[in-house]
């Protein structure tokens, strides 16, 4: 089943074609990497898919419905989750509160004005479970300021997971992480991918080749190649346009 499809998706900024005629198709359960040099249009593409930017052309189809132009918060409700390139959490809430807020939002419980937070045991249990999944179970009570950079990224991923998205977009999930943190995040993404479709961008080719089922190569706003890691490794166009530059 196709979960996400973009049809000739385009976005111009003045004279610049940041994204032009991108047509992607993701199967449910797939892990897809979008790679490409800086400025290839990866973040713009993500912004278009998550509704943060309106496309200047083309369509976004999510689970069979045309969602082009649907605002960001409504897309979240439909099941598209996103983790940001810049760590984007609630800095002065505790680690646990961060996730609990997410779970409550995901379950539509946030309009309850009078019930004590403590009475939401199901949600609290789910929040603890998510914290375990992102390996922060032991730090639940700490303020966010006590977390390392890598842990904050995990917390952010947890916040995204709290909404139970069926499609998760990860923007450079390992950026700025140490080697150990990277390894644990890679393992985490693998686990996340068992229950959701993942679309991610990443600079580190080692990570890309080890977790992606399929790779789309974005170059100057257009998809220039698509295929399994093996196919991409052997693709001449890609080597010239992208890998070749780095080698």
């Amino acid at each position: 089943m196709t979960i996400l499809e973009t049809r000739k998706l385009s976005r111009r900024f003045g004279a610049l074609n940041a994204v032009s005629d991108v047509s992607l198709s993701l199967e449910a359960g797939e892990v897809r990497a979008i790679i490409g040099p800086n400025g290839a249009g990866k973040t713009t593409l993500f912004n278009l898919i998550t509704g943060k930017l309106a496309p200047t052309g083309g369509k976004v189809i999510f689970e069979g419905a045309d969602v082009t132009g649907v605002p960001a918060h409504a897309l979240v409700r439909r099941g598209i989750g996103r983790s940001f390139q810049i760590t984007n959490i609630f800095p002065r809430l505790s680690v646990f509160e961060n996730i609990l807020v997410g779970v409550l939002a995901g379950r539509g419980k946030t309009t309850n004005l009078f019930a004590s937070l403590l009475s939401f045991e199901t949600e609290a249990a789910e929040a603890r479970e998510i914290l375990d999944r992102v390996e922060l179970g032991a730090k639940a009570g700490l303020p966010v300021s006590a977390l390392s950079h890598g842990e904050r990224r995990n917390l952010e991923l947890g916040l995204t997971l709290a909404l139970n998205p069926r499609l998760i977009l990860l923007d450079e999930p390992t950026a700025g992480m140490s080697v150990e943190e990277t390894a644990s995040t890679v393992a985490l993404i693998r686990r996340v991918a068992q229950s959701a479709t993942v679309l991610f961008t990443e600079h580190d080719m080692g990570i890309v080749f080890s977790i992606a089922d399929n790779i789309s190569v974005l170059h100057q706003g257009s998809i220039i190649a698509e295929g399994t890691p093996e196919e991409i490794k052997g693709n001449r166009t890609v080597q010239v346009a992208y890998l070749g530059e780095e080698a």
Partner: protein
Amino acid sequence: MKKLSDAAVSYGSRPIATSLVNGKTLTLAGFAAAIAYPLLDGNLYNLQLFTEIIIISLLALSLNILIGYTGLVSLGHAAFLGIGAYASTLAMQHVYPSIWAGLTASVLSAGIVALAIGVFCIRLSGLYFAMITLAFSQAFYTIAFYWDSVTGGDDGLIGIPRPDISLFGLTEISIDGFVGYYYFTLVIVALAAYLMWRILNSPFGAILKAIRENPERVEFLGLPVYRYKLAAFIISAAFGGLAGGLFAPFQGFISPELLYWTKSGETVLMTILGGIHSFLGPAVGATVLIFLRDTVLNYTEYWKIIVGSILILCVLFAPGGIVGFITARLSEIFKGASK
């Protein structure tokens, strides 16, 4: 740029602050002291001062729903004190002479006005929100000042009653005396504060805090931030209105002065002075400021200079407020002791 709410964190050691100031024990002890007070001190002047402190504490607590919990600084909160006071007076004098009618009118009118202007104010953020709330409050001041036939204009309204309250039709209780009204105020404010506390510790309250921290991210949790802010604005105003509804019978007369911008300024100062990061901090601020005013007015009529200067000093040197300041000192002592 640092957030206003960073201040307390820079003092470190929030858990101690919360357990000390929000702690059930301390709150209950304070409540018990408040109940016992009229029995211990027969001085009616002091009793009146404490009645005022209790009412104005409610006003400061209600403002903190916006400042401390939602991250919206309103500079026109006294408008709701005034609207509540006028509404309750008019309701009691012209509609039905019951304190309950007065209080209901004060809460409803403040809430409805907040809905009407909040729809516009909430569209603006930060400095512009602060300013536009002030602009609206001054508009209400102007209305109260010139609408002679209803508000009594500059002279205000006098002869505000304190009707007896009927307890389930069984017995009538008089709240006309100083002691009676003190207890009545204490009970109503305690109930209101409890309700506020419940709201702030509900899932809704958690979202308000999340909005304070990072509104964009809340949008990405799939929630309409605008409506949550508007709800917070209305709730805050309704409690502010209730304070007004209690204040009118307390003072016995009301005038446009209640809505004047300096009154809003005092309320902001109480909130900041007490500390915006503890639920009861603003009540501490209200207590300190009212005592201070009472003392200062014995020596000079230039009260605004004092309030303004304290606000300036507070912003420059103690942005965490009194509670934050004391907490910081305490946590230093605790750290020292544990070494």
